[in-house]
């Protein structure tokens, strides 16, 4: 069944978009991520312009992380204090990201920027995740005990001033790296149309030593607020949010996420991280391939404005 999208200005198959929402929602629920890095390329593939795709996916991620936050909140797995501190940086990062998005769109280099950012970010993060989880799995198979987190293990991050205590996560760190991480996630999210969950979770674990119990719930709080504000900012500045497209994606996404979450609970942590790492890496390589291999069509046209 075809439905005409009022902002994207083209008809799409409603069941195809719903199925995409379900599939991405399943993956996002399974790994506790937003899934924007999968959804945005899928929408572009269906023929929706990159700008509309990025702007509309923001609201889809807001919906799926909202349902995630509620269920993690019930399990007391959300560190609200940490979430709010991350947010302070996140909102600023989103505003700068939306501004840069508008500038790049005017310069005609938005596609290239999105393409290169995807390659660099996804291949790096994916590669790191895969190597880390493979090592963890190998250690386990050799029968060596997994090194537990030592109370006194300090890195340079812990030497920074403005220290704060986050009770629920049981950590005592400086506010500066927290703000910085928030800013990066907000910025990347607005420019690339991704929630940044797959980036935020490893950052919180490796830099701030946030325990696994609260890391996903807390990262979802940040994703929820940055993506909801990205939706509002994209709508107010670029007028590119397609509410009809967003609604179809949301409905598929939240349903898929529930089933994904159940599938994810039956899997071991490092196996889950390996799978997610491979997925992230695959998407990154797919974008790299696109940049390196000669495109089928060297020419492209884009409407600048109507008379």
């Amino acid at each position: 069944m075809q439905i005409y999208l009022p902002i994207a200005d083209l008809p799409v198959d409603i069941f195809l978009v719903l199925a995409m929402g379900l599939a991405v929602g399943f993956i996002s629920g399974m790994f506790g991520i937003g899934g924007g890095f999968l959804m945005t390329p899928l929408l572009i593939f269906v023929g929706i312009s990159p700008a509309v795709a990025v702007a509309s996916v923001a609201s889809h991620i807001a919906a799926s992380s909202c349902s995630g936050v509620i269920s993690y909140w019930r399990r007391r797995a959300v560190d609200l204090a940490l979430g709010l501190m991350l947010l302070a940086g996140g909102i600023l990062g989103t505003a700068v990201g939306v501004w840069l998005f508008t500038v790049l769109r005017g310069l005609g280099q938005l596609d290239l920027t999105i393409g290169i950012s995807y390659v660099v970010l996804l291949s790096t993060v994916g590669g790191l995740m895969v190597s880390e989880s493979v090592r963890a799995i190998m250690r386990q198979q050799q029968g060596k005990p997994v090194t537990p987190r030592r109370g006194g293990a300090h890195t340079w991050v812990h030497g920074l001033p403005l220290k704060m205590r986050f009770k629920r996560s049981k950590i005592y760190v400086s506010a500066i790296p927290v703000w910085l991480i928030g800013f990066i996630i907000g910025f990347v999210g607005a420019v690339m149309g991704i929630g940044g969950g797959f980036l935020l979770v490893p950052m919180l674990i490796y830099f701030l030593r946030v325990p696994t119990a609260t890391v996903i719930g807390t990262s979802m709080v940040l994703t929820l607020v940055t993506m909801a504000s990205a939706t509002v900012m994209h709508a107010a500045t670029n007028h590119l949010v397609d509410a009809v497209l967003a609604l179809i994606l949301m409905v598929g996404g939240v349903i898929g996420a529930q089933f994904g979450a159940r599938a994810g609970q039956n899997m071991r942590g490092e196996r889950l991280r390996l799978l997610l790492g491979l997925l992230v890496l695959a998407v990154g390589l797919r974008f790299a391939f696109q940049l390196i291999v000669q495109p089928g069509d060297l020419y492209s046209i884009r409407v600048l404005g109507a008379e």
Partner: protein
Amino acid sequence: MTRHLIIAAALLAASIAGTKPAAAERLVTSISRHQVLVNSSFTGTSIVLFGTVEPDTPTARRRASAYDLVVTVTGPKQTIVERRKERVLGIWTNVASRTFINVPSYLAVLSNQPFNQITNADTIRQLQIGFDSFILPQQLGSDIGDVGRDDPFRTNFIRLKTQHQLYVQKTNGVTLLTPTVFRAEIPLPAEAPIGNYDVDVKVFAESAMLTRANSAFEIVKVGFEQFVATAARDYGLLYGLTTAMMALMTGWFAAVVFRRD
């Protein structure tokens, strides 16, 4: 100098053709719809143009040679940038670009036979019949003009527009039902932009244009589609807040429905 001569000669030829008493024809056209409504189930449509060529005065004799017809439909004007990718440092990226200024977003050229069998090359160029002769103004340095039809940017522009079915050229697009009554179908894809479309019909006989007529239709968004589009454009902030609220409600709803504990 030679160009002026050609234009002068063409004008002279046109005035002679115009004053020929036997060439008094009247063209009457009608289109099936003057308004195309875009709603949520819009997937493209087509408009049918009917017309008849009749002698202006009852005493005028019918021509021995057949009539030829060229229908040109132009959509709302747009400024479009075309970019070409090249390999830079191993990466395929947009390097060169060309801006097409106020060109038709939609262009259909329909006729009953190939243009060069309808009239001569000069007239084709002068009346801008077909893609090759239609003037597509481009920004060339500080000037605005149309380059030759073999320019790669121009040919690829037309190719891309044709792929999206926004530019259509059919030399069998007009059917003569009787020697004087014709019918043409104007295909409109779902991507055809909102706005006013001009329909220009030209009648030829013996290589000369006898008369032409203009008509128009418009494509408008209606109902929900129009409401959403207007809201997004005119009330961006409110629209964004509503969409964000919708996202939160959907998420909350899912969390409640699928609650297990």
